[in-house]
């Protein structure tokens, strides 16, 4: 009962943020790109509930649209990593042998890089912008998904119904898609949610270092990065965007955590993943 309530809370928190981001254009927020020079770095007031930034843009509107940016890139990158890494992990577990050994060692090579460093390298190659940050995150998370899913997939591959399916001559693709994948859904749900939470922080770190979203794109990390230059005079863009990053990442992490409890209480000891 209590678990369900926590789960409902987590879902509510995430859904609220996602909905606001999705529906932003219809919710009557100001234009996040409009510069009003006479309204530069104003503290929160009736017109601009969270104040304005250094170009006189509404901080609230930029945060809401920043949610869109963050969610869009992070969802895309985690989805890509899930498809790539998940396939690698499952196929490696299913085929074993040399494929498993070589591919997983390659994953180890990627995994050996500190997350941020690998992402910085990828971005340096393709040039800093929002989508290269997304691609960088995908590259970084591919080995993580591969490693996370290979373990449970191994257990399932040894199970009697998979062995049975093999015995009756089911095709490999069919076994992976209809027998292995469905059994991994709970792991995938939990890990995707936790990694989304982490991806939001990584995206923010990259934008903070000037390697993610570029002006004038509204992005939470970029707002924080630009806002920190005005910390003494106008701390609100930096503080509010930092809080927004925290809430978003927090929501997904709580969701993953609650899902883990609900779906599989034994998974508790898996270490949280973070940049």
């Amino acid at each position, binding site marked *: 009962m209590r678990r369900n309530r926590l789960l409902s809370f987590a879902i509510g928190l995430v859904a609220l943020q996602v909905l606001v981001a999705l529906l932003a254009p219809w919710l009557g927020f100001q234009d996040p790109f409009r510069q009003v020079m006479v309204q530069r770095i104003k503290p929160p007031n009736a017109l601009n509930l969270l104040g304005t930034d250094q170009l006189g843009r509404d901080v609230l509107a930029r945060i809401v649209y920043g949610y869109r940016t963050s969610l869009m890139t992070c969802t895309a990158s985690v989805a890509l990593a899930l498809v790539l890494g998940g396939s690698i992990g499952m196929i490696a577990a299913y085929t074993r042998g040399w494929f498993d050994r070589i591919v997983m060692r390659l994953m180890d090579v990627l995994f050996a890089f500190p997350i941020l460093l690998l992402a910085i390298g990828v971005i340096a190659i393709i040039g800093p912008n929002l989508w290269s940050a997304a691609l960088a995150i995908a590259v970084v998370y591919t080995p993580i998904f591969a490693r996370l899913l290979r373990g449970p997939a191994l257990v399932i591959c040894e199970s009697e119904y998979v062995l049975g399916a093999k015995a009756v001559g089911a095709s490999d693709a069919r076994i992976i898609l209809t027998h292995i994948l469905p059994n991994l859904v709970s792991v995938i749900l939990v890990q995707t949610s936790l990694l989304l939470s982490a991806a939001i922080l990584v995206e923010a770190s990259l934008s903070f270092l000037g390697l993610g979203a570029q002006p004038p794109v509204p992005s939470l990390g970029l707002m924080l990065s630009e806002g920190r230059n005005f*910390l*003494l005079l106008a701390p609100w863009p930096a503080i509010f965007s930092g809080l927004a990053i925290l809430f978003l990442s927090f929501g997904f992490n709580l969701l993953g955590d609650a899902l883990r409890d609900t779906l599989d209480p034994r998974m508790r000891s898996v270490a949280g993943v973070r940049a």
Partner: protein
Amino acid sequence: MTKHRFAALLASTFLASAATAATLDIAVDTAPAGLDPHLITAFNSVLIVQGNIYQGLTDIDPGLAVQPGLATSWDISEDGLTYTFHLASGVTFHDGSTFDAEDAAASLRRVQSPETASPLASRISPVVGIEVVDPLTLKLTLDAPFAPLLSSLAGIAMVPAEMETDKEALQMAPDGTGPFKFADWTPNGYIALEAFDGYRDGKPQIDEVKFHFVPEAATRQIGLVSGEYDMLPAVDPATALQLQGQPGVTLEQTRDLAYTLIGMNVTDPALADPKVREAVNLLLNRDEIIAGALFGAGVPAGPLSPALTEWALPTSDFSCYTPDVDKAKALIAESGVALPIKLRMVVLPRQDAKDIAQIAQQQLAAGGIEVELINQEIGDFVQSWKNSDFGMFVSANGGNPDPDQYFYRTFYTGGSTNVFKYSDARVDDLLDTGRNKTDMAERKAAYDELQVKLACEGPIAHIAYANLTTAVGPKLHGFVIHPMGRLSSLKDAVLDD
């Protein structure tokens, strides 16, 4: 450990002050890549060495006038082709050796040598003969009169003669004649200089100058306010605005020689037409850009800085500096270029440049010029700039005290930094006149015409000269700001305990 003892340790840890006597702590954003005065171009590298560790034959004062440096006087021949410098006696290098004409000659040869590949070489390119007359007399012969020579020499550091053949040593271990000598360098940490006992005007009062490398603007600001640092040299307008009125902080300001600009590639079919370039100038509202990106701390820029009082024309002389969207549209229509004009604008990775780009993007859109902003990392930016791989770019340039030093390489057909591929016969003529005539009136006339021409239809829309602001903490007295950003006044400054 008990809780109390831990608390006591924590308290004593916090209360211990690390301040040592008479150390001036300066925070800058990036570490220099090297300290060889003949190789470095980065502002922060020059800031550390020029006037502190090294000196030139001449010097440029805060009013941008040429003053004696290591040469106490000089004679110029009638035809302007021979310069004879009389050097100061009793000057020693930090290593203890004596400075004489041999060192001066070797230093100039070192800059000119292709092996050194010094970016300063072009500043003394007309010098064809370097002759040591006696230990304190140096004679330079030119192949053509070259008016900017004296101000150029201020930027060429005098190094010991044996460095002429040693291309590596000075990068890590500078050795000059300045008031401070190099002491210590922790990469990414700090560079420390200490007062030089043998300095010719007496040992400076400040014992040690430390340049700390602090990448975060917020950290530098808070550090200055909290007393951790005593000076932030050449802060950006946003920082200046924030430090204004903070307790104990004084802002020293002067007009900057450096300027922000929007460059235009004249090989672009639209920008090839001078009318379109003039339309760009008419669409840009410089006052609004200055208010927005520079927080009002600056003035609209013509091709020359108003700090060059003898040369610069007021911007009111440039017709295209009054924003006029209709006139701009009419000019574009006249040119026959179809709207919308789509351009890629690459942006220097600096906050003021990024803000200028965002504002300019909106202003240009009003005239049907659609600009896509490409924010690049510095390495990429330099590459794009160098390969002329841009429609437009937003950047910042350091200025020079003589018009020739900037104009010639930038606007002459095939000039070394003419990345715009700009070529105009009249401009080339005027540039030659300005360079080869030593008569002030003739030079002035040429540069006046050039400024008017370049301001509206040149390949650069000059945006703004910002105020050069240096923020100083309460302990430092006697610092005088220099429009070229130099810290040479530190030799006479005093530091409270």
